């Protein structure tokens, strides 16, 4: 029991941090533009594919460095020459633009790399068990995922809260006009934040690709969950996104690890049903199988009991 719990927690942490790498950029970009960027997860997918291609010629580590950079530059270009122009036409136009972009990227990925799953692998040096506990192995690659996520977050947190540029970014997000009047180039700051946000999504793709498989549907698979996280955490709240990411990562991981079926759950609640009941199909359900819909269940609950999200503020 304890071993299952420890491993489920570690795996939940890996997923949670990965989700936050996407959710943090999405949240920052939302705070800036006022709309959700539906193409955000597409940049995540691009990260994985670029890294795969680079790794074929120059190895995994070059991919780790260059894929996020390429994705970040691409994001900045999209902001500068796409979104910034569409922005004048209002939020609906921006939403449609990011939708279209998501489709475009997916089609482009299929066109250039094909519809099949890519054999993108973790590097050999990380192909060993980091530690063995109760006879179960925890791979070094997962440890590496935790390490790299945490170090990126700590660095970004320091830049955002301690440095001058971080202070300017914080202020520009909430008071763009005032910051511009003080002599700061707000459009350039927005382009930079958009670029860094997409680069983070790209990095998430680079490190997730080998574990979650690299295929054209990977952006949709993760994208919907990331939107759920951003809403659960409270639109625009980085801390909320962090909590929601870990919450969903852990929740899913525990659900998958627990081998509990519906009858046991209902028994726990003191309910007893006969096997011949018309809702018989429910009996075959078990927690691991409903794990994928847990985020959405949580979303519904949060929206009912706390419509602004965990740490969201009410619109003023």
């Amino acid at each position: 029991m304890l071993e299952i719990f420890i491993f489920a927690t570690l795996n939940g942490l890996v997923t949670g941090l990965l989700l936050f790498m996407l959710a943090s950029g999405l949240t920052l970009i939302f705070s800036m533009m006022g709309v959700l960027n539906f193409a955000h997860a597409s940049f995540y997918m691009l990260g994985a594919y670029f890294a795969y291609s680079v790794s074929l010629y120059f190895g995994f580590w070059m991919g780790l460095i260059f894929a996020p950079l390429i994705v970040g530059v691409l994001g900045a270009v999209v902001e500068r020459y796409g979104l910034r122009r569409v922005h004048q036409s209002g939020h609906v136009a921006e939403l449609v633009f990011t939708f279209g972009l998501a489709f475009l990227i997916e089609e482009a990925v299929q066109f250039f790399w094909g519809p099949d799953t890519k054999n993108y692998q973790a590097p050999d040096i990380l192909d060993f068990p980091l530690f063995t506990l109760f006879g179960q192995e925890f791979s070094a690659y997962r440890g590496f995922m935790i390490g790299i996520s945490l170090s990126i977050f700590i660095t970004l947190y320091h830049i955002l809260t301690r440095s001058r540029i971080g202070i300017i970014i914080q202020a520009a997000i909430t008071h763009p006009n005032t910051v511009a009047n003080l002599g700061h180039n707000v459009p350039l700051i927005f382009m930079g934040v958009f670029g860094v946000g997409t680069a983070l999504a790209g990095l998430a793709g680079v490190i997730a690709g080998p574990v979650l498989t690299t295929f054209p549907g990977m952006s949709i698979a993760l994208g919907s969950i990331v939107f759920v996280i951003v809403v659960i955490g409270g639109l625009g709240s980085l801390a909320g996104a962090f909590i929601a990411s870990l919450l969903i990562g852990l929740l899913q991981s525990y659900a998958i690890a627990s081998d509990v079926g519906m009858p046991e759950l209902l028994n726990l609640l003191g309910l007893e049903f006969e096997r011949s009941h018309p809702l018989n199909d429910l009996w075959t359900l078990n927690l691991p199988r409903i794990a994928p819909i847990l985020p959405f269940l949580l979303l519904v609950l949060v929206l009912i009991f706390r419509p602004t999200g965990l740490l969201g503020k009410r619109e003023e």
Partner: protein
Amino acid sequence: MLEVNDLHAYYGKSHILQGVNFNVQEGEIVSLLGRNGVGRSTTVKTIMGEVAPVGSIKFKGEEIAGKNSFEIAHLGLGYVPENRDIFPTLTVQQNLVLGMKSNKSQGRWDIEEMFRMFPNLGERAEVNGGVLSGGEQQMLCMCRTLMGDPDIIMIDEPTEGLAPKIVEQVALLLQEIASRGVAILLVEQKLSIALKISHRLYVMGHGKVVYEGTPDSLLQADDVRAEWLEV
């Protein structure tokens, strides 16, 4: 050094500025007076590029109509908006850092000195700007703009809603600003400070400048005051 010629501005279809003309010379304190809604704030916002200008705005001889706000600020135009837009979740110190246009503080002002001039701010350097009183926020807002070392500062209703004691502090800061050779365009509704410190005054009515003079001449012009200023 700031020359506004036949300036027009619109909010949608409403024609708010209908040919505004005025100028501010180097080191001068000039007030822009008028009743509520005559377009004083719109005038400074238009100069700053926050509202689209039609007409000519020259600063140090260069046409700035059509430039971005941040470029205009870099040329040396400072602006303190009427809503005291401090950043509530940043500390007093961070608010001041935001006013600086580059990493090094140079020019006429530095943070230590501001804290010495205004001990209320100094004592609260690490406190979030949002918890300051209205008067302290006004001071912070003016100091923040000064950190960018402007050659002219446009201040929109700095004394609105403040207690007389704090109004005095504002007046002192304005004189300190002027003594360092920074020109001031003071937007006001009340005459009190404006008459005391201005070199010249303009009175606006219905989107135009309707009177230009000195504090003395305005004191004498009872008809102007009755028609355009007194309520």
